[in-house]
């Protein structure tokens, strides 16, 4: 084994040396021509003597990882460091595979609020019953890729947490658009794109003031679009076969996109905010038949069995409900006391003992919140393989949620798997992402300790081999930085 690898290393060094001579010339010329950026001196990085977590449960306590041109060249206890490598001293550092966010709006600039009424808009009559697709929030064909902006603040905020890859979708409502896999690096929109799955996102966000406004109407509209798209596909197939005597079949981008869902070219990433939306989405799926990834699932502690039995991918929310205001002012010991004093069977007439009733309500509220926090642990216990999503929340809240999930019994390996291997599996990226193995993409997060521990800070993030040093002065940016509240 070692014999073989040392031989191949010689070859690869030679090969890469040749390649870099060939490629360096046009690259540096281009850099001088088109941008004021200083060309990268070396595309080879070695992190030496670090703790390397290749994948959940696969740890090298002290080893070296080398990557070149965005690809991991070698990783192991003893690895020869190429002469041209930039060396990072990994002493006291831990290296993980870059984290993956399975659904987000990262890198997509938020549009101006659509609810603001501009001058002139007043005169524009809206047909409430039959609004345009745009007005109804039904734009599943809207491709996120041209909208990506690497300078959008969300890119850096996410990267600072250790994310290197996201699935991202345009801002919108019921069917905001077609998502894409994107790297959190690159000089322009095109450079961020990872070619791969482009799912359609669906969520229960009604159109404001027009049809469909309510969850029931959104479900009806989804069925209508699906079934009519199905019919159109059949008619189009007949027309393609022989158009003689047939009227030209109708086409529009919305039904066209539903066609891709029907023939399973595209999956539906459905964002659910509570258990009822999980049930509703699963009934749409069983009724119509499409490939589904359930995302969000806040309150999904009530749907563990149903989701475990369902034919759907799962990405749980990183959003944990806020603590009630009263609890923020109470110490942990006192909170535990309140919980211990809880009486399920209490029957206190309010007029007799308001205080007892209030205490009991507080305890129930703590128990309720504990269920939200323990949800990922429950899915892990049920054997559901899940990823994570930050959809609908702010990046700054991710850290505290992660800490709470671990505190509620989610193992660190399960947590890491959700962020890396499971996410890569879910998105079909396992061939080149999700773990630190030779030949995979150099997406890394380098920390000064256990990624999910209390005081750990992210030191570097590498995206496709590009280095981002995380300013330690900010402190609050690491995955365990200060809580916002």
């Amino acid at each position, binding site marked *: 084994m070692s014999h073989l690898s040392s031989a191949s290393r010689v070859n690869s060094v030679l090969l890469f040396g040749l390649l870099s001579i060939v490629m360096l010339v046009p690259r540096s010329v281009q850099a001088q021509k088109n941008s004021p950026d200083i060309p990268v001196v070396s595309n080879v990085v070695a992190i030496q003597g670090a703790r390397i977590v290749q994948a959940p449960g696969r740890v090298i306590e002290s080893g070296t990882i080398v990557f070149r041109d965005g690809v991991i060249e070698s990783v192991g206890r003893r690895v020869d460091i190429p002469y041209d490598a930039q060396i990072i001293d990994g002493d006291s550092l831990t290296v993980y595979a870059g984290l993956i966010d399975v659904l987000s709006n990262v890198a997509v600039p938020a549009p101006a609020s659509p609810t603001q009424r501009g001058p002139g808009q007043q005169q524009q009559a809206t047909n409430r019953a039959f609004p345009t697709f745009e007005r109804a929030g039904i734009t599943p064909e809207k491709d996120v890729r041209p909208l990506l902006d690497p300078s959008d603040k969300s890119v850096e905020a996410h990267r600072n947490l250790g994310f290197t890859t996201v699935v991202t979708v345009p801002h919108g409502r019921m069917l905001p658009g077609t998502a894409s896999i994107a790297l959190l690096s690159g000089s322009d929109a095109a450079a961020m794109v990872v070619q791969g799955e482009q799912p359609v996102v669906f969520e229960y966000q009604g159109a404001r*003031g027009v049809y469909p406004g309510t969850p029931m109407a959104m*479900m009806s509209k989804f069925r209508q679009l699906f079934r009519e798209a199905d019919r159109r596909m059949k008619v189009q197939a007949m027309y393609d076969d022989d158009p003689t005597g047939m009227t030209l079949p109708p086409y529009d981008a919305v039904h066209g996109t539903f066609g891709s869902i029907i023939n399973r070219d595209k999956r539906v990433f459905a964002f659910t905010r509570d258990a009822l939306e999980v049930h509703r989405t699963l009934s749409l799926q069983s009724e119509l038949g499409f490939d589904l990834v359930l995302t969000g699932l806040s309150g999904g502690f009530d749907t563990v069995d149903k989701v475990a039995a369902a034919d759907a991918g799962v990405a749980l929310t990183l959003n944990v409900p806020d603590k009630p205001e009263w609890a923020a002012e109470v110490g942990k010991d006192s909170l535990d006391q309140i919980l211990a004093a809880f009486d399920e069977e209490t*029957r206190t007439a309010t007029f007799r003992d308001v205080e007892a009733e209030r205490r009991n309500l507080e305890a129930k509220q703590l128990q309720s919140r504990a269920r939200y926090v323990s949800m990922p642990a429950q899915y892990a216990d049920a054997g559901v393989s899940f990823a994570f999503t930050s959809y609908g929340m702010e990046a700054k809240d991710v850290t505290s949620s992660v800490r709470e999930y671990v505190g509620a019994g989610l193992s660190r390996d399960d947590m890491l798997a959700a962020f890396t291997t499971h996410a890569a599996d879910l998105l079909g990226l396992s061939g080149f992402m999700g773990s630190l193995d030779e030949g995979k993409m150099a997406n890394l997060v380098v920390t000064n300790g256990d990624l999910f521990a209390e005081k750990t800070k992210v030191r570097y993030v590498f995206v496709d081999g590009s280095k981002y040093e995380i300013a330690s002065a900010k402190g609050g940016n690491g995955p365990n930085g200060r809580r916002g509240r």
Partner: protein
Amino acid sequence: MAALLFVAIQLNAQNVVIRNATVLTVTQGTLENTDVLITGGVISEIGSGLRAPRGTEEVDGTDKFLMPGIIDAHSHIALSSINEGSSPVTAEVSMEDVVNPYHIGIYRALAGGVTTSHTMHGSANVIGGQNETIKHRWGTTDPDDVRFRGAPRTIKFALGENPTRNHGRRASNASGAIVPATRMGVEQVLRAHFENGQRYMTAWDAYNAEAATNPRAVPPVYNDRLEVMADILRGEILVHCHSYRADEILMLTRVLGDYGVHNITFQHANEAFKVAPELAEFGAHASVFADWWSYKFEVYYSTAYNAAILTRNGVVTSVNSDSGELNRHLYHEAAKSQRYGNLSDTEALSLVTINPAIQLGIQDRVGSIEIGKDGDVVLFDSHPLSVYAIPELTFVDGVKYFDRFEDPDDVRLQISPSASIGAYEGQITGRDRVHDHTEVVNFFDLFSDIDFDIDSDNR
């Protein structure tokens, strides 16, 4: 952990025998000192000294009154949204999709002896959404577990002030008023959609016939709204129509008659007494309030004799709640109709049991205490038509879901992890604001940035 926190979920039908009670069967008279045995969720024996299988729960009904579970023919509990108010016709939407088993209204209804509710779309639209009939199996969080399996499909229509105000009287600037603005317009919306539904049905029937021999037959455009209109025309959906005035009630019977639709229950129908013989002749049913009116102009001409007059004229009549508060004393409402109109006990009890069951098409399953019917029963401490009556135990499918003697302070299935404790103090439970329950998506809130004035409480 969840099981410790909340009321145990009892979804499996159980065996129970209620002994020595006064049994108000509603359809087969009153039986003194009688046992009722429920096995596997179904009433299996009625008699005295019944032998119950091992493990059957024993309930002593001595000096107590057992009646069929009360059926509320008009309710808006346990729903995540009520009105899709964007269009005068939204036949395709269905309350089936937005059942909310977490809603505390289910437990409150059980406390009033109500075992089945007809949960309805609101009255914002001429043709609103399809409704859902549920059983009050409190404790489950899966919407499928509260459905009344096998209950026929029903749909909400609405006449009069609500749809004309919501669509025809909107601020005439940006949002634009549309048909219907008047009762005439309401009729035209109905006729237009029946007409379109008929054409749609014809087009699909023609296609299906042609497709049998011609592989190149082109299917017509799919339209889920007209699918539902066609199903109404085929008699597969029962119509429940929000209505008040006699003229509009007659109008709808004529429209339905023209399209061969005869499954109609007029909801509210405060002036139905004026046209009771016409309703009986048409075969229409009525679901009314005992004595509730004058909350808007079209509801001033009303009488507490409405239910009695309709009953005497042979109209199948029920008394409903339309409220998460009133549904807890529907037996009192039935008693009021009896008090005013001299109905017999059986006639009065029928108003909240077998008659609403007929109107919902579930009379073979519930609405009376008969062998073979579902084990949905309520045990009262005194005669349910007495003003002193209190429901003590409520069973659905033989499972006890309410017990007045084991009734903790807080049985909610869902508690906000973040809200301030004070937020619960203001929780709205009364009849007037029931549509505005915080857990319900209020369609009209979606218009908050659009200036028009609208009453969201579309009763």
